[in-house]
C-alpha cells in the first residue's frame, strides 16, 4: 500500500520542521517527505488541505481495561478511540485484573493488540507482584514479553525498603521505573484537593504534601540507586519545583501531566460532579497555572490522556463513592491544541509534548516524521471543532468533565504502520 498525503502542513517536532510538505508512505514506513520519491506510484492519495500532518500521538497513560474490566471497555472500543484521536502508540498501566505481573498476561495482551487498525501497545509491567508493594516481579521476563517500563499505576509502595530494592533491581537492567507520587497516609480517604472547595463541600482533602513527600522519597531513592525514574501525573506547583531542583542536582528524572490537570482545577468539582473525581485530585488554580507553564518550558516532559474509561454506574454515585478517572484518549489532541493556543505556543513545541517527547520516555522509535520512520501519522484539521458528546466518543467510557464542550482539532486521518486506521472524512 502506497499512500501520498498531499497539500498538508507538516509538523515534525523532533526535527523542528514546520512547513508545507507532502508525505509518502510505502510498506508501512515513511519513504519520502517533500518531493515525490522516484518511481512512487500511490495506491491512495489523502488530501490534507488545511490540515496539519504530524507524527501519530504517543499517549503515556491509556487504560485499555483488558483484561478484567471488559464491562468498562474493550480493546476494540479503546483502539477505535485511539485511532479516532490520532494516537498511534500508547503505554498502558498494569492495573488490570489480573494485574500485568506475569509474562503470559503481557504476551496475551500484546498479541491481542496486534491488529492493523490498532495503535502500538506498550505495556508498563507491574513493579511488584499484584501491585501490593511487597515482592518484586520478574522484570527481565516481563521486559522480554514486551514491557517497556515498570510501575505501580496509582498504587503506592508503602514500604520504602521495597521501593528502594525495586528501584535498585530495575536499575540493574536499566529498566525505567514509573511512579505516581502520592503518600498513601496523607491521601487516606481523600477524594479532593485539600483546599477551599473541599472545605466548602465537606469532602475529605488530599494535601499537596501528599505529593511532595512521596516525591521527595522517590527523588532521594532515584539519586541513591541511579534508577531511571519517570514521575506520572504530577499535580502541584510544588511538585514541579522539586523535579526541577532534582534535575538541576543531576538526578535523571522525567515527568508527565494529564490533560485534566492542565485544564481544570478544584473549582470544576462544582456541585459534586463525579466526573471530576480524579487521581491525583484537581488542585488549585495556581497549581494548574504552574503545570501549564512547566509543560510549555519542557520542565514537564509530556502530556498524557490518563484515559480511564468508567461505566455510568461507576460515576452515578455520591462523589466520594464514585469511581476514579475520566475518559480522555480522544481529547488528547484537542486539549493539546487548546493549551497551545492559550499559552501562545508554536505548534511544533506543543506537539512535541504528545509525540517525540513521550516517545523518548517510552524508549520506542515513534513520534518522528522523517524518511525511514514508521508510518504512524496523524492528519488533523486544527480549526474544525470536536464536540465532546456521548455519541462522538468512540471509547466505551463516556465519563469526562469536558462533556458537552467543543474544542478545535478534529482528526481527519490516522495511519498506523502505513495503514489507514481512521478516516474522518467518512463520519
Amino acid at each position: 500500500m502506497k499512500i501520498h498525503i498531499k497539500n498538508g502542513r507538516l509538523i515534525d517536532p523532533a526535527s523542528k520542521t514546520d512547513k508545507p510538505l507532502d508525505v509518502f508512505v510505502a510498506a508501512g514506513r515513511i519513504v519520502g517527505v517533500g518531493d515525490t520519491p522516484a518511481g512512487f506510484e500511490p495506491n491512495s492519495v489523502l488530501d490534507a488541505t488545511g490540515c496539519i500532518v504530524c507524527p501519530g500521538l504517543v499517549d503515556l497513560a491509556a487504560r485499555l481495561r483488558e483484561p478484567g474490566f471488559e464491562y468498562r471497555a474493550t480493546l476494540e472500543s479503546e483502539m477505535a478511540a485511539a485511532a479516532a484521536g490520532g494516537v498511534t502508540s500508547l503505554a498502558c498501566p498494569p492495573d488490570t485484573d489480573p494485574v500485568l505481573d506475569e509474562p503470559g498476561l503481557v504476551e496475551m495482551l500484546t498479541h491481542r493488540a496486534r491488529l492493523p487498525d490498532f495503535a502500538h501497545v506498550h505495556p508498563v509491567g507491574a513493579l511488584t507482584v499484584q501491585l501490593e508493594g511487597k515482592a518484586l516481579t520478574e522484570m527481565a521476563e516481563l521486559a522480554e514479553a514486551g514491557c517497556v517500563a515498570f510501575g505501580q499505576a496509582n498504587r503506592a509502595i508503602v514500604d520504602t525498603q521495597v521501593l528502594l530494592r525495586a528501584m535498585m533491581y530495575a536499575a540493574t537492567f536499566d529498566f525505567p521505573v514509573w511512579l505516581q507520587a502520592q503518600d498513601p497516609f496523607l491521601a487516606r480517604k481523600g477524594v479532593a484537593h485539600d483546599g477551599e472547595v473541599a472545605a466548602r463541600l465537606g469532602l475529605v482533602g488530599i494535601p499537596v504534601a501528599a505529593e511532595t513527600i512521596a516525591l521527595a522519597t522517590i527523588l532521594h531513592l532515584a539519586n541513591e540507586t541511579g534508577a531511571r525514574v519517570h514521575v506520572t501525573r504530577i499535580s502541584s506547583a510544588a511538585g514541579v519545583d522539586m523535579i526541577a531542583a532534582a534535575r538541576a542536582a543531576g538526578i535523571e528524572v522525567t515527568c508527565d501531566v494529564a490533560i485534566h490537570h492542565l485544564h481544570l482545577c478544584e473549582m470544576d468539582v462544582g456541585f459534586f460532579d463525579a466526573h471530576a473525581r480524579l487521581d491525583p485530585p484537581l488542585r488549585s488554580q495556581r497549581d494548574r497555572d504552574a503545570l501549564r507553564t512547566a509543560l510549555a518550558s519542557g520542565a514537564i516532559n509530556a502530556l498524557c490522556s490518563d484515559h480511564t474509561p468508567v461505566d455510568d454506574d461507576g460515576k452515578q454515585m455520591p462523589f466520594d463513592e464514585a469511581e476514579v478517572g475520566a475518559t480522555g484518549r480522544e481529547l488528547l489532541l484537542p486539549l493539546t491544541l487548546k493549551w497551545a493556543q492559550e499559552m501562545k505556543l508554536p505548534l511544533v513545541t506543543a506537539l512535541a509534548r504528545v509525540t517525540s517527547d513521550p516517545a523518548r520516555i517510552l524508549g520506542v522509535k515513534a513520534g518522528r516524521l522523517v524518511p525511514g520512520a514508521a508510518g504512524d501519522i496523524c492528519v488533523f484539521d486544527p480549526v474544525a471543532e470536536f464536540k465532546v458528546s456521548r455519541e462522538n466518543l468512540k471509547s466505551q467510557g463516556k465519563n469526562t468533565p469536558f462533556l458537552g464542550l467543543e474544542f478545535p482539532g478534529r482528526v481527519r486521518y490516522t495511519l498506523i504502520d502505513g495503514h489507514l486506521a481512521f478516516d474522518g472524512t467518512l463520519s
Partner: protein
Amino acid sequence: MGAGNPQLNKHGELNHLLTIEGLPRDVLIRILDTAAPFSEVAEREVKKIPLLRGKSVFNLFFENSTRTRTTFEIAAKRLSADVINLNINTSSANKGETLLDTADNLAAMHADMFVVRHASSGAPYLIAQHMGATGRDHIHVVNAGDGRHAHPTQGLLDMYTIRHYKKDFSQLTVAIVGDVLHSRVARSQIHALTTLGVPEVRVIAPRTLLPTGIERLGVRVFNDMREGLRGVDVVMMLRLQNERMQGALLPSTQEYFKSWGLTPEKLALAKPDAIVMHPGPMNRGVEIDSAVADGGQAVILPQVTFGIAVRMAVMAMLAGNS
C-alpha cells in the same frame, strides 16, 4: 462543569433544599417567616394542618439518626402528609442496590418528597439531579444531613432560634465551637450567618478540627476558646464524636474539655445575655459542662421545638413551589 444552583427552579424558587450556600437572603428570611405561625400549631389541641394532605414524604435515612428523623416525621405529620420511614443503613448496599436505584423505586411509588440523610457529602444532590434529568422535578429533595457537607434545616432552625432571642442579625458576634472539620452543621451555620448579615462569625477549635481554608468562608479563626468567646452574643457548640479520639486528632476527652469544653467560667467571657446553642445530642463533660447545658443561658430545648416549625415551613414551601 457546574450548572446553576441546582436547588432553585427556573423561577428562582426553592425546588429542593440541599444547602444554605448560595441561597439568597430573602429565601432564608421567607423560610424563617413561614416557620413562625407553624410554631403555634403545636400549641393547638389538634396539632395538624392540611397543607400536605395526600402527599407522601419518604424519610430516606442511609445513616442512623433518631432525632432528626423524628423531627422530620413530626413536621410532615403535622402538615397531614403520609410519612414513610426507611432506615437503609448498609442493607441495600449489601444487596447491591445503588442509591439511585433506591430513589427510582421509591419515586415509582409516587413519592412527593424525599428527606435524605447520607454519610456521603453530596448524596442528596445526586438524587435531586437524577430526578431533574429524568423529568421528575416535582419530587422534592430535602437534605437532612450529608457527610460533612450540609445540614440546612439545622442551620435554619439555629437562625430561627437566634432571631427569636436576638431579633436582629446585623449587630451580632457569633462563635461556633468544636469539631468544624467533620461538621455539616457548622458549614450550614456559617453560610446562614454570613448570608443573613452577621458581621462577625468566629470558629473556635484546635487546628486538627478545622478544615483547610475555612477562613475563606468568611469566618475568623480562633484556637484559644477564651479569646474567641470574648464579647460574643451567641455560642453555638458542636457535637464531638467519641471516635475523634482515635486517629490522632485529639489526645483525650479530658484535654479537649479543658481547652474547648464550655464551662460557666468560659461562658462568663461572652456577653452577659449570650445564648448557648447545641444541635444535639450533647456529650456532657466533653464539649459542654452540665452547668451550662442546664443553665439559664442555654436555649437547646427551644432549638428542638423550633426545629419542627422550621422543617414544616421548608416542606410546605417546597410543596407550594411544585
